Structures are given as structure tokens and as C-alpha cells.
């Protein structure tokens, strides 16, 4: 990394400040074009026929009635896929359109393009598909046991991750065990899957789409279309939230196929119900844990078996399993660890990335175990965590040494010191009570509980993945002002990356005016907007490019001004000499010159895990957050009100403090949802609640005010010392809330989301 010494950390609207979002004004005016808002002259509308069955053989597809419908331009099936009819993020096992078998309810079977969305939907209904319905496979543990029919060649285990660390047969004085379940959570982004494919004169196609990773979309699309890479160009459409649910393909190949087939632009937009079928979900999990400790509550060993149901196709099940396993003991120092984690196939909806990515499931189990251990040892829940807290220098169960700040102790200590909310007193406002204005209690049956949890998340891609980002920075004089332009393919999904990239350039080049070019595939990959990695990776790439521009500029200035380059720096729109002060306006030094640099930037390499022992330096960086939840539980009705949800998180360096708080609030809310209300309920592989009336996400009334403390303990390996922010708060929020409910009720509660039935024994 280039030296940072001349970085202008006080730049107006540079890093460490909270300038308003560059896309903010358009968003509040309704002028920001989301992918579902796109429109093209003469465009057609695409629609998708999906399997109603979780598992069936296809005996025939008759498209003739659909094709005969006036206004229908194309009806395509798997025989119309010109390239390889398989895609997938880790390995290509998922058909673009089903061939002879469907493996989940909602699997795409055929696609239609018509001149009106209603016509397209009608045509879909006229496609006649013969199904021979099969008994669905839905049990992850049975899959590991080798039972049931094989859904894919090679069996139903996508990945087995064993971890063997320390002694394997050690015993302990205090042993606590548990079996835990995590329900299937949905990303439930508000903006549905959508995009517009426009056929091009060169025989290629331009796709405008809401996604998290343009280049991996492109890579999968070209394989399916059988086109060279330069014939499929992607541009990011406005993204209405992602949270992992846009890392896999949805409309991408389908829209391109229809556009190329009809020679017309094709728009596809899912409705809410289709969206529930159209993207992957968070893996539901069953986790068996055994913690052994001495009588003082110090951990001797952790043993765990984890079963993650990946559903019909692999998606990122392998990496999710890797995370669950390697982070499976949590942010604790544990000398002896035995973990086996399996990600499996089934006929349930496919599961993949969602905020927290494997760490969420493990955290619910290990934090529940830590509370159990505290009780078994007669310790306070925070105390037992403090006694086992990992710190810099701790070895993870993978053998990897944590080589930057791991302030688990400080997070918990600060959290415990925060003031608790006042007790309920006086005439209660219904809105402060469980049930709210539904008027279910005026205080009767309500018991308050307090719970703590802390979590760990790996930041950036792990296990030897070649994780990089590409950035281009240009500096020139425009209209009498020094102006910078930044270009990347990094997807702005709402996290505020476009703000941060501008801040970095202001800091490094000392210019006010920074233009962000559209995110597209005309530049190299930025990697995914996932794994809390974009500030680190694309932030790092932009910074590196800006530093190269700065170095070139300084060289240029030295030549023009006849000054020693070692004495020069830039800042505040000036070229400054350390000895002589301001020498010239930057704009004058620039003149007609332009400095334009593109950099491909990598984090330090990681290693794959040993397939037998799970040992290896697999991770780049870790994020830590801790939550304290205060929950009022109506113990008779099983209704809840989360009264407070306080958080302490280390972010290394807050590039944009306001955005950091927003990420912590948002992540915590999604954890709250998983704790008390959010679950895709399936029965025999069939989704029972694909709607916002029955898949409930928190409203403003469900989200309590949060006290948040942000630590900035720099990671010396990361740009500006930053740590990824987005995922850690999602991880500890859920177990903290459940711990609070346990404290209020005395119930074991080994499953999330906690439902009224669990609290009332009904």
C-alpha cells in the first residue's frame, strides 16, 4: 500500500464526515430510476412460468396456445437456451429453464415476451406443462445420513466443513448442550427483481438490472447465451435494497434471452409473490452444540454439528457453510474445537446469501449456549462472555491468529455500562406495550427481560478467493475547477458506497467536485456488494487509484513549478510546499493535463481450509458487534415489545459516521425480525406465506430507539483502518433479543423466530 502520510484527513466532506448522499436528492424527489422504473420505446414485457411443485418430472411442455395469443412475441423453454443451461455462483447446477425435472416450487420452466404485461401473464397461464409429481426431499439431516433420492449427481451434500482444533477427546467439569433451529429468513427488499434488456446491433445485448455484482452476472449470462463477454454489457439499474438476495441471478438471463430472440427491448419485473420465489433466502439451520467449561466458566471445548438446508440449488451454500463452521464458536477463545457443518440440497426454496451469511445461524446457537453456560456456572451472562472473550492474538478454531483489534471485552463492558431504559410507570401508553394499539394488555402479564449477545463476522471474501476491485480515477480541470471522476463497477444498493467513494477522493486529492460514473461492465470487476466488503475493497481500490493520480500530479507540479516533488502535497484545491506554503492553485497546475489511473486492488491473500481439519488462514478481517436487548413480554399472550436494542460495534474507522449508524440500525432491525417475526414457512417444500401480509417485517413501531456506541480501533491491514460495518449488527441482535425473552419468561426457546405459541405452550 502507498504511504498515507500526506493524506489530507481534514478535507471538506472527506472521510470521517457525513456529507449527504449524492443520490439523495433524486431519491427524495422520486426521480431516481430504479430498475423497475426503466422504460424503452417499443419494449416488450417478460413473464415467467414457474413450477407449482417442489419436486416433479416434466413429462411435456406445450407452448402452442400461449404462442397463439395475440400480442405474444416469444415463448421460450430450455431448448431455446443457446449456451450452457446451467448457472450458479459456486458451481453451475441450476438450469436457466428447467429441463426434465423441477426441484423447487417456483423454479422457472418457461418465459414469455408480450406487448403488455397482462398479455404476458395470460400467455404464461396458457403454457401446458405435464408434471409427474414426486415426493419432495426436505430433511437436511437425512441428506447427510445419505437417505432419500439424490437431487443432484454426487448426492445431497453440497459441502461438509469439518474443523478439528486442539484435543478432540478432552472432558470438562461443566457441560451444556442444546439443539437450536433457525427459520428461513427472507431479504424482503422493497424493490422487486427487475431489469431491462436491450438487443444491440452487434448481436449482443445491453442489460440494465438491479444486482449486487455486475461481473459475476455477466459471466453467468454469457455462458448461458453462448456469447463472448464483450457482447453482454451490464449497467446497474437503481437498486431497491439487496441484503444478499440479489447476488444470484433472477431476471438476468431470461430478459436477455427474450430480447435476443425477439429483437426488441424486454422489461421484466417480479411482483411481491414472485419475488419470494425469485431469489434465494437465508439458510434455515439445525444446530447441535455441546460446550464444556471449567467451574469458573472458562471454555474447555466446543463441539457442534450444523445442518444448513441449501434448498434445490447450491448458490453460495458452500461459502455459507464455511462461515458457519469457521465462526462456529463465536468471538471466544476456545482451546479445543470439533465442528462439522453440512450444507445440503433439498426441495425447499434455494438458499444463499443474506446479511450475516452463515454467521447468523451459528451465533444464535453459540450465544444461546453461552447463556446456558452462565446459568450452569452461576455466572452473569456478560461475565461468562468476558471470561472467554477473544482478543488480538487469539487463534480461531481454524488455527488462524487474529492479527488486529478484537475488542470483544470492551464491547461488552461498554454495553453493560450503558443506562437501561426506565421502567414502565404510570398510566401506560398502549404503544409502549406488547400488542400496541391492538389493546391486548394494559400491563397485565408483562415481564421485562434483558439479554446480551456478541458476534463475529468475517469481512470480505474468504478461503483463498481472488477477491479484488477495480477503480478508475481521473483528475482534470473542468470549468475553472479541479474536478475528479471516479468509475467502478461496485453496486450501490443503498449502503451509501457512492458517498464514501467521493469522500475518499476528496480526502486524497483535495478537490471538492467529484463525479461518479454509472456502474457498469465497461470497467473491471469490483466484486460483490456483500460480505461487508465494498468500503474495504472498492474503497481501497479508489484510494489506490487516487494515490497514483496524486503521485502523477505531484510529479507534474514539481516539473511546472520547478520544485522538489518530495516537498509537495495537494489539499484544499492547492498545491502546497511543506517549506514555502501554498504555491499554486491546483486548477492552474492542471491546465489542460488530465491524470487518469485505473487500479486493480486486492486484499492480502487468504488460504483455503484443509478439507480434513478445517485449518487455514481463511479470513481477511473480522467485524465485531454486541447488543443488549430489553424486551417486555406479555407472558400470557406471548406478544412482545422490544423496548431497547443497544449496540456497541468496532468499525475500525468510520468513513461516514452517519452511514455507519444507519447500517447498525438497519442490521439490528433485520436481526430483530429474525428473532420475533420473520420466517418463510414451508410445508413439503411449498411456501405458505409469500406475501407481506403473512411474511412480516418490522415496522417503525416494532423498532425501538437504539443507543449506539461506535469504536474506531484501526485495523492496520485495511484502508484507513476500516472494518466492514453492514453485517455484524445483524448477527448479535437476534440472540440478544431471544436472551431477553428467556430472561423474562424462563423458557428455553431454542428456535427463532420466537412465536407466541412458543411462549404460551400452544
Amino acid at each position: 500500500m502507498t504511504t498515507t502520510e500526506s493524506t489530507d484527513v481534514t478535507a471538506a466532506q472527506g472521510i470521517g464526515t457525513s456529507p449527504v448522499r449524492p443520490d439523495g436528492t433524486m431519491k427524495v424527489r422520486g426521480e431516481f430510476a430504479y430498475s423497475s422504473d426503466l422504460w424503452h420505446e417499443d419494449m416488450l414485457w417478460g413473464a415467467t412460468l414457474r413450477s407449482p411443485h417442489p419436486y416433479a418430472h416434466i413429462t411435456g411442455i406445450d407452448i402452442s396456445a400461449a404462442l397463439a395469443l395475440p400480442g405474444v412475441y416469444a415463448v421460450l423453454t430450455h431448448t431455446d437456451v443457446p449456451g450452457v443451461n446451467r448457472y450458479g455462483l459456486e458451481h453451475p447446477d441450476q438450469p436457466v429453464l428447467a429441463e426434465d425435472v423441477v426441484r423447487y416450487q417456483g423454479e422457472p420452466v418457461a418465459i414469455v415476451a408480450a406487448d403488455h404485461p397482462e398479455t404476458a401473464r395470460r400467455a404464461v397461464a396458457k403454457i401446458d406443462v405435464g408434471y409427474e409429481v414426486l415426493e419432495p426431499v426436505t430433511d437436511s439431516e437425512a441428506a447427510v445420513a445419505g437417505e432419500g433420492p439424490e437431487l443432484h449427481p454426487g448426492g445431497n451434500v453440497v459441502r461438509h466443513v469439518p474443523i478439528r482444533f486442539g484435543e478432540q477427546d478432552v472432558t470438562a467439569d461443566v457441560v451444556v448442550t442444546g439443539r437450536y433451529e433457525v427459520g428461513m429468513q427472507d431479504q424482503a427488499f422493497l424493490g422487486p427483481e427487475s431489469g431491462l434488456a436491450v438487443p444491440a446491433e452487434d448481436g449482443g445485448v445491453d442489460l440494465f438490472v438491479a444486482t449486487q455484482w455486475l461481473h459475476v452476472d455477466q459471466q453467468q449470462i454469457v455462458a448461458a447465451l453462448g456469447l463472448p463477454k464483450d457482447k453482454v454489457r451490464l449497467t446497474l439499474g437503481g437498486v431497491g435494497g439487496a441484503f444478499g438476495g440479489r447476488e444470484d441471478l433472477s431476471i438476468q438471463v431470461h430478459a436477455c434471452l427474450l430480447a435476443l430472440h425477439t429483437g426488441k427491448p424486454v422489461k421484466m419485473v417480479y411482483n411481491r409473490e414472485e419475488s419470494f420465489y425469485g431469489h434465494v433466502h437465508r439458510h434455515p439451520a439445525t444446530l447441535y452444540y455441546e460446550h464444556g467449561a471449567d467451574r469458573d466458566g472458562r471454555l474447555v471445548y466446543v463441539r457442534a454439528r450444523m445442518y444448513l438446508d441449501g434448498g434445490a440449488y447450491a448458490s453460495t451454500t458452500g461459502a455459507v457453510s464455511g462461515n458457519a463452521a469457521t465462526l462456529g464458536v463465536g468471538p471466544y477463545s476456545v482451546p479445543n474445537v470439533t465442528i462439522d457443518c453440512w450444507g445440503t440440497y433439498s426441495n425447499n426454496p434455494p438458499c444463499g446469501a443474506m446479511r450475516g451469511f452463515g454467521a447468523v445461524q451459528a451465533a444464535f446457537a453459540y450465544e444461546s449456549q453461552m447463556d446456558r453456560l452462565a446459568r450452569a456456572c452461576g455466572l452473569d451472562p456478560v461475565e461468562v462472555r468476558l471470561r472467554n472473550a477473544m482478543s488480538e492474538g487469539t487463534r480461531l478454531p481454524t488455527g488462524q491468529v487474529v492479527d488486529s483489534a478484537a475488542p470483544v471485552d470492551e464491547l461488552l463492558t461498554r454495553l453493560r455500562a450503558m443506562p437501561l431504559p426506565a421502567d414502565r410507570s404510570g398510566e401506560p401508553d398502549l404503544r409502549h406495550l406488547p400488542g400496541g394499539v391492538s389493546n391486548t394488555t394494559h400491563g397485565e402479564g408483562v415481564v421485562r427481560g434483558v439479554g446480551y449477545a456478541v458476534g463475529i463476522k468475517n469481512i470480505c471474501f474468504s478461503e483463498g478467493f481472488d477477491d479484488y476491485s477495480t477503480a478508475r480515477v481521473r483528475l482534470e480541470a473542468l470549468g475553472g475547477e479541479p474536478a475528479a471522476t471516479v468509475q467502478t463497477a461496485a453496486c450501490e444498493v443503498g449502503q451509501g458506497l457512492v458517498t464514501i467513494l467521493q469522500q475518499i477522493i476528496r480526502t486524497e486529492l483535495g478537490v471538492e467536485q467529484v463525479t461518479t460514473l454509472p456502474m457498469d461492465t465497461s470497467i473491471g470487476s469490483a466484486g460483490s456488494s456483500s460480505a461487508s466488503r465494498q468500503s474495504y475493497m472498492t474503497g481501497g481500490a479508489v484510494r489506490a487509484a487516487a494515490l497514483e493520480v496524486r503521485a502523477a500530479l505531484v510529479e507534474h507540479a514539481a516539473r511546472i513549478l520547478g520544485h522538489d516533488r518530495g516537498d509537495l502535497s495537494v489539499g484544499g484545491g492547492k498545491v502546497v510546499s511543506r517549506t514555502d506554503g501554498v504555491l499554486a492553485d491546483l486548477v492552474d497546475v492542471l491546465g489542460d493535463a488530465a491524470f487518469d489511473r485505473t487500479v486493480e486492488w486486492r486484499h492480502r491473500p487468504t488460504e483455503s481450509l484443509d478439507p480434513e481439519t478445517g485449518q487455514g488462514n481463511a479470513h481477511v478481517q473480522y467485524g465485531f458487534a454486541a447488543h443488549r436487548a430489553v424486551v417486555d413480554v406479555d407472558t400470557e399472550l406471548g406478544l412482545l415489545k422490544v423496548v431497547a436494542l443497544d449496540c456497541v460495534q468496532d468499525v475500525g474507522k468510520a468513513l461516514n459516521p452517519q452511514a455507519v449508524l444507519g447500517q447498525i440500525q438497519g442490521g439490528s432491525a433485520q436481526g430483530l425480525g429474525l428473532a420475533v417475526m420473520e420466517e418463510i414457512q414451508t410445508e413439503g417444500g411449498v411456501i405458505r406465506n409469500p406475501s407481506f401480509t403473512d411474511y412480516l417485517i418490522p415496522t417503525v413501531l416494532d423498532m425501538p430507539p437504539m443507543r449506539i456506541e461506535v469504536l474506531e480501533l484501526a485495523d492496520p491491514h485495511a484502508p484507513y483502518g476500516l472494518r466492514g460495518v453492514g453485517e455484524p449488527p445483524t448477527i448479535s441482535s437476534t440472540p440478544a433479543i431471544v436472551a431477553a425473552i428467556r430472561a423474562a419468561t424462563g423458557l428455553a426457546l431454542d428456535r427463532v423466530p420466537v412465536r407466541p405459541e412458543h411462549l404460551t405452550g400452544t
Partner: protein
Amino acid sequence: MDFLRPTTLDEALAVKAQRPDAVPIAGGTDVMVELNFDHRRPGALLDLTRIGELAEWSSSDGQISLGAGVSYTRLIGELGDVLPGLAMAARTVGSPQIRNRGTVGGNLGAASPAGDTHPVLLATGARVELASVRGRRTLAAEDFYTGVKRNALEPDELITAVHLPIATGGEQFAKIGTRNAMVIAVCSFAIVLRDGHAGAAIGSAAPTPRRVAEAERFLLDELPWDAPAPLADSFKRRFAELVAAAATPIDDVRGSAAYRTHALGVLARRTLTWAWDTYRGSARACA
């Protein structure tokens, strides 16, 4: 689909007589979902939102005549003092946006077992006013609900109003949802106590909203009406058992049958306490 937009009630009734297949639409909160999801393709829609007569209410002889087209927002704002139970239920309907358009008439027309206002209408002894070109009739609310999403409307009839007594004692409504706002009822309960009347009804716990007759009779017979004193726990529990026994709920994605039955018992016990406290207060005030 034809779209019919009469501006007077007479015109609407004439249209409905000619086009009995026309589906009435007011706030649209139920009908529009069915249209958007293609669950229903009526030959015609009859828009009632332009009929001023339906959007009025009047008061006489201790009764409120509530036009079928009065929005929940107006009901809460204009009639919350005199119809507190109905206002409590209205406050839990959907969101402020939905309450701006949704109406009690629409709730009745949809006749969903989960409709929020039904238990209050049943418990307070409301009468539903129906009209057609053949004339007007009123039905007790309990006679109006005939099955899951089915009601006693004849094909040529429209719901024009609901007649309810002004509250003189205690009224309570409570609803279970797994979120603290904007939630469809897992189950709900209403209770109305006034001199000579004890009404109680359940929602989302049977194929139709339902009065709990035995529990009502118990209250009427056993409550210490003449010497209102706090109720013993055993008394409330007996009432709760009778309410729970009247429920025939199902297991579904929103909740289990066992939970619904259990929760109704708890709600019955609590709302009885609150309603009785109010009744006692009003009895004291009159004394």
C-alpha cells in the same frame, strides 16, 4: 369489466338491480387485492365512493346510524367518544392510508372472519341496513355473516348503514397480531357491557365472526349489575373458559388453533376487567 359510478343511492340501487353481478367497491382495501391478484374478475364494479349519502352519519334516540361509506379515519375522529369499541377496532385496521379509505360497510361486504370491526358490531348488537330497489331491511349483525367471506346480501342489495347504540357502559376490543402495527388479526375479541346488555364476540376464530352466546348469558345473569364491585378472578376465568369454548379456530400460517383458543381466553379475561371498570365508573357517575 364495466365501471359504474353512480352519484346517488337511488341510482346505485337501480344499477345494482340491473347488474347484480356488479361488485361494490368503496375503500377498495379488499376488492382491489382480489383484482390485483386476479382472484376475481367481476363483470362490473360499482363504485360507491361518489355517493354522499353513504358517507354520512347521524344520531338519534341513543343510536348512531353510520353510513356504510364513512372511513375509519372519520369514524375514529368524529365518533370515537360515542362508539369507543368500534373506534378501538378501527384504529387497528391496516395503516393510516388504509383507514383513510376503508369503511365499516366494506368490512361487512368482505365478511372476512378476520375483519376487525365484526366482533364489535356483534357485541354491541349492531344492525346492518341493506337496501335494494325493492326496499330497505335491517338485519342483526349476527344474522348477516353466513359463512367464510359470505354474507346475507341479496344480489341486488347494497349495504347502506350500520345502526349501533351509543356506548353507555364499557366497550373493549382487543386483537392479537405478531407485529405491533399493520397486521391481520390472528384472533380478536370484543365485549360491550351496558345496562341490560352484555355482548361478546370473537373474530378470526371460526368460519365467521361469532357471538359467544353462552358467555354473554353468563355475564348477563351473573355480573353484579346492581352493586358493581370488582370481579373475582374465578369469575373472569369462568367467562374466559366460555369464550374459549365457543371458538372453532384452525391452524394456519398466522397461528395455531390452540394458540387462538388460549389467547381468546386471555383477552376475554382482560377485556372483561377493563369493560367492567368502565361500566362501574359510568354507573357511579349516574348514581
